[in-house]
């Protein structure tokens, strides 16, 4: 028992995994410092770029200047909280050099192991990136726009969590492809480029043609950080039901596909020379 919440052995196992990953992160002080710098740099870039674009204009594509900067602050923060990208690279490396076996021989599901690793990292970085975002808003003293509707705030954060879960599943799936293809760097490069565009990390998606956005809405990436950001800005709230259905469907699909893929590929894997 821990307080009033009973902890099952399984829960304790995964909590300890999260804990050990937080402890690991706490060793790397320089990493924390540079992650703060990178968030600030991204925001500074947006501040300068949109300052030029908004010169002499009240709005661009329905966005006021304050709203645009708020978009960047929130989107940068939410995007930087997704720590799952390293899963694919780590799996690629470990399957190729044979050290992935360390996850296979202990009584832990490899996907759950990586999920705990991601949560551990995110918990550590959330403190630093949140501080960086807060300092930035304070220094530049601009009007930070956020919805007052509690339901929209809850919906946005729930969607964010679903988004992170999906990204973890998705990166795990890409990592599993190493069992088959031995090298997945090309897949990862394509994924990174597509994701940057669809997630709205490069530009707000409202600036793209309507037809393109309609296609994006069938894909989960649209809902990862872009839609939660827009909902928090008080926009696109009518898309919440569709967002939940789409995300839950994608999560369900990968919840079935990932274990099946892992089982299929690992039993076919020859593991020669490792």
């Amino acid at each position, binding site marked *: 028992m821990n307080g009033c919440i009973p902890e099952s052995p399984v829960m304790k196992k995964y909590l*300890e995994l999260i804990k050990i990953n937080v402890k690991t992160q706490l060793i790397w002080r320089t990493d924390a410092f540079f992650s703060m710098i990178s968030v600030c740099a991204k925001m500074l870039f947006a501040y300068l770029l949109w300052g030029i674009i908004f010169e002499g204009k009240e709005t661009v594509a329905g966005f006021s200047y304050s709203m645009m900067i708020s978009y960047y602050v929130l989107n940068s923060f939410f995007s930087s909280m997704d720590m799952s990208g390293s899963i694919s690279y780590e799996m690629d490396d470990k399957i190729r050099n044979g050290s992935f076996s360390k996850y296979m*021989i*202990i009584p*832990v599901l490899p996907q759950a192991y990586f999920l705990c690793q991601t949560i551990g990292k995110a918990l550590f970085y959330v403190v630093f990136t949140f501080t960086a975002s807060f300092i930035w808003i304070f220094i530049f003293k601009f009007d930070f726009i956020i919805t007052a509707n509690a339901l929209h705030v809850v919906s946005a954060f729930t969607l964010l969590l679903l988004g992170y879960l999906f990204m973890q599943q998705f990166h795990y799936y890409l990592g599993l492809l190493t069992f088959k293809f031995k090298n997945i760097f090309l897949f990862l490069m394509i994924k990174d480029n597509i994701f940057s565009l669809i997630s709205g990390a490069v530009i707000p998606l409202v600036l793209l043609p309507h037809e393109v956005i309609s296609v994006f809405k069938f894909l989960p990436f649209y809902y990862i950080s872009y839609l939660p950001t827009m909902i928090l800005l008080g926009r696109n709230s009518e898309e919440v039901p569709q967002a939940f259905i789409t995300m839950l469907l994608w999560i369900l699909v990968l919840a079935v596909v990932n274990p099946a893929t892992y089982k299929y590929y690992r039993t076919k894997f020859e593991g020669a020379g490792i």
Partner: protein
Amino acid sequence: MPIIETKDLTKTYKRYKKKEGLRGSLTGLFKRDYEVKKAVDSFNLEIEEGEFTGLIGPNGAGKTTLIKMLTGIIAPTAGRLSVMGFYPNKLENAFKKQYAVVMGQKSQLFFELTANDTLSLFKEIYDIPKPEFEKSRDYFVELFNVKELMNVQVRNLSLGERMKMELITALLHNPRVLFLDEPTIGLDAIAVKQIRMFLKEVNENKKTTILLTSHYMEDIKQLCKRSIVINKGLKIFDGSTENLFNTYQKYKILHISFADKTNLRMEDAQLKNCSILENDEYKVTLQVPKEASSKILDYLFKSCTVQDITVEEEDIGTVVERMYS
């Protein structure tokens, strides 16, 4: 009933036959030829609970592939396989909780943290009750005499110290079977000796079944009552270690350094069964019959000004070659 049992266990894999040169690489983009290689071939094995067995063979013999199949890391291509009644490649948690594997080159430790941090994690992973965990940890820590190292960052430990921590981590949940793949590779003589002592104690006191692969004859000789020799995927010997070495390890290697220029007269009666492996005026390496080695040493000390002498066992490769021929 044997704790480990295999029947006609076989593992084959496809190997890309790349043609040499740029042209070969370009051709490989469109058409590739593969050859099928048998890493383990119709391997039959029965190991009883509590046995300490050595698995010997040269590089590429199939030892690690066999260990990987026994631990479920890879699936066999054909044949039957049972470890503690489980089919390993199903990777059931009930199975994984009963064995441990330590591979010399792969680590379960978190390098940024201390060994104690890893042990706390493994306590939860294996669901070990606190009193049992503390008892087990204290037992191994004392056995290895590493109390003062438990709170040192793993990255700051020596290779030998790290291997001790790997073994403690692996044995924390008191596994019934322990697979060891080259645990002493790259370690100094003192660490090797301590690890051997530790493994012997674990096998005797905890009745842990141990399957050990090693390139070092001394590891096998000192620890394993039974040895299995594998070459090119085939089992070529399975019997007592004593018998193996008495039968097939026929020579010792002597490295002798002289204080003065010396030319050994190989036609002397005492040296007639010896062969010279390396020779210069101050140093010679001889291959001598095992049973005659003490007489030869005696003769060398009396007839030459010996400065230094090292006696070596024949390496595994040579012994296996002899067995095979």
